[in-house]
């Protein structure tokens, strides 16, 4: 028998049900240096002058790296790349807060953090040239690039789990964008991290766009940080154009993660360049908006802090620039010097030991290249490796 009503009367307001809704949460955005250059003295991290110079140096490096890598790409010497222009404070402030023992899970827009972590610039360029070998991320605790957005988030949970089981004093640090927070992998990875209480920090650079999609269409939630609560992990929202604030936020998150509370950090910033070298942002956003964010430039803001605190005079910007340009030149030369690879590279590493059928296929390819050298007419080795 069907007893359910055909029509439902509206619920009365006085029955005491008060749903949780967006407005119930008030989330502070943590800052050290405000956009007008004034700063909260008690929040300035207790670091030596070398470190204060380093922040500037590395942000400048990120900027120069992006400019030069984009030029290389235009000349066909790199594949598609994603620039961190405008996000330098988020990238460097977070990278600087990590220990070399920590594991970074990158997704492609965080060159400076990876270089800070010990990756060679040559290898980073080789990766964007499409050279498999560079994915070894030799000499640095850096995982392979997560080109499939969000796919690395549960991996970071698992890595953190392993670090914890082994009693290591290190965290897993996942870089991600605002778009990644809409994937199933994000939800599952964070929830499980919360359940396990593993040393993981999920660092979301909310750069306001996922390709063309503005953040307010990515989610109906007002912030990324608030999502932390739903998974039972800690959340921090920080001004992502304030390098000292990001440094403090990630240092704090790292400490908490080591104590068993995973943290989701949202760094609020802006992607000033195109999404990648194959994107045309004029199709979906206004120049005014970009100009507005240019006024909140992370390097300029930090420089004003350095000037006010008497630290700027000791910094020779031209010298840093020259040094970084030279480093880039050297990295390009080193990348160009890498020898052309043989086809066996493509078949290696899929299995610990190559199965006979794969060996046969490799042999088939070798024979073909020998017997039909005209195959090379169809092989455009561009960009060269």
């Amino acid at each position, binding site marked *: 028998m069907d007893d359910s009503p055909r029509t439902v009367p509206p619920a009365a307001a006085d029955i005491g049900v008060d749903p949780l809704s967006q407005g119930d949460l008030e989330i502070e955005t943590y800052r050290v240096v405000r956009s007008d250059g004034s700063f909260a003295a008690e929040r300035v991290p207790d670091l030596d002058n070398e470190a204060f110079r380093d922040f500037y140096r590395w942000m400048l490096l990120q900027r120069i790296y992006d400019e030069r890598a984009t030029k290389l790409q235009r000349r066909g010497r790199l594949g598609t790349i994603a620039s961190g222009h405008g996000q330098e404070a988020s990238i460097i402030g977070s990278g600087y807060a990590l220990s070399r023992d920590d594991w970074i899970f990158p997704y492609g827009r965080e060159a400076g953090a990876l270089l800070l972590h010990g990756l060679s610039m040559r290898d980073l360029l080789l990766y964007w040239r499409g050279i498999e070998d560079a994915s070894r991320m030799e000499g640095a605790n850096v995982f392979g690039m997560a*080109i499939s957005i969000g796919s690395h988030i549960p991996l970071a949970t698992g890595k953190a789990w392993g670090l914890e089981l082994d009693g290591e004093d290190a965290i897993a640090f996942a870089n991600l964008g605002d778009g990644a927070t809409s994937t199933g992998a994000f939800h599952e990875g964070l929830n499980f991290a919360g359940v396990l209480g593993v040393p993981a920090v999920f660092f979301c650079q909310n750069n306001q766009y996922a390709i063309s999609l503005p953040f307010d269409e990515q989610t109906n939630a007002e912030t990324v940080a608030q999502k932390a609560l739903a998974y039972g992990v800690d959340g921090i929202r920080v001004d992502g154009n304030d390098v000292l604030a990001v440094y403090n936020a990630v240092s704090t998150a790292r400490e908490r993660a080591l104590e068993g509370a995973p943290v989701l950090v949202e760094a609020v910033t802006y992607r000033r360049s195109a999404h990648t070298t194959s994107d045309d942002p004029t199709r979906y956003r206004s120049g005014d908006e970009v100009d507005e964010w240019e006024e909140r430039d992370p390097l300029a803001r930090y420089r004003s802090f350095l000037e006010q605190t008497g630290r700027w005079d000791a910094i020779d910007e031209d010298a840093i620039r020259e040094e970084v340009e030279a480093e880039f030149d050297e990295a390009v030369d080193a990348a160009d010097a890498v020898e052309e690879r043989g086809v066996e590279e493509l078949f290696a590493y899929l299995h610990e030991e190559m199965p006979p059928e794969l060996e046969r*296929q490799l042999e088939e390819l070798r024979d073909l290249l020998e017997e039909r050298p005209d195959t090379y007419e*169809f092989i455009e080795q561009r960009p060269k490796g």
Partner: protein
Amino acid sequence: MNATIIDAINDALHAEMRNDDRTLVFGQDVAESGGVFRATDGLLAAFGSDRVLDTPLSEIAIVGSAVGLATHGFRPIAEIQFSGFLPPAFDQLVTNASRIRWRTRGELTAPMVVRTPYGAGVRALEHHSESLEGAYGHVPGLTVAIPSTPHDAKGMLISAIRDPDPVLFMEPKHVYRSLREDIPEGAYTEPLGEAAIRREGEDVTVVSWGAMMHKTLEAVDNLDGVDAEVIDLRTISPLDRETVTESVRKTGRCVVVHEAAKTGGFAGELVATINDEVLLYLEAPIERVTGFDIPVPLLSMEDYYVPHPPRIEEAITKTVSY
């Protein structure tokens, strides 16, 4: 109009959006920016934001909500930006889209299309180059269509949109803009589940689809003295067994060319079909020219992975001279 494949897809979307106001187009970056390949360019302006929507970065929600909408009588046309990002949503295709009619004994149906560019050769990043049509073709209840020409792209997409069941529409992005031909104005259909004979011949049957179709035709043109019949399969599932077996009955020889990896690839199914139905007509073993059993290499060496005309020529020559 004179159109590339991408123009033809765009034109088909415009035509069907006009014809049927229960159609919706959604996916990542399809509305405001018109799609990363511009396949959906102009739709937002023409049909408004209720019918043309940018979605969050959620493949599962894109495909899953398309199933929900379709069961409610809408005709969703979803885009997955690159087929390399379809795997999270594979669950929705397998678990729901492909079997909702079967599960509900015909009460609910999922007339929906998932469009997605696939294949190598555009020098993109990892996960932007795969060909997994064989895996999708393995899902009962899912139609997997792959056009190779502008004319078919438009006609087959319109058929897919009008189809009463879910269609995975895989677009060979390597040839998105490299071919042009004149196509009819307005809506027209090309049937799903029917292969096309691109070239008639007597000596050997060569079956291919997608971007490999054009490499195959190039190879056949290069071979003097071989009269090859070339079949564009056009639909992986349901498979047009008859066109393939009829041709092999005539030629007695067959080469299958696809870009996907060899093991478990769809060529295996074709070989088995020929074996089932026309084995005794064969005068030579069937050759397969496929990608290798490895992930598609990163951009600097991806061309080594893809079958090129010389390799196809070798296979045809071997079959013919057996």
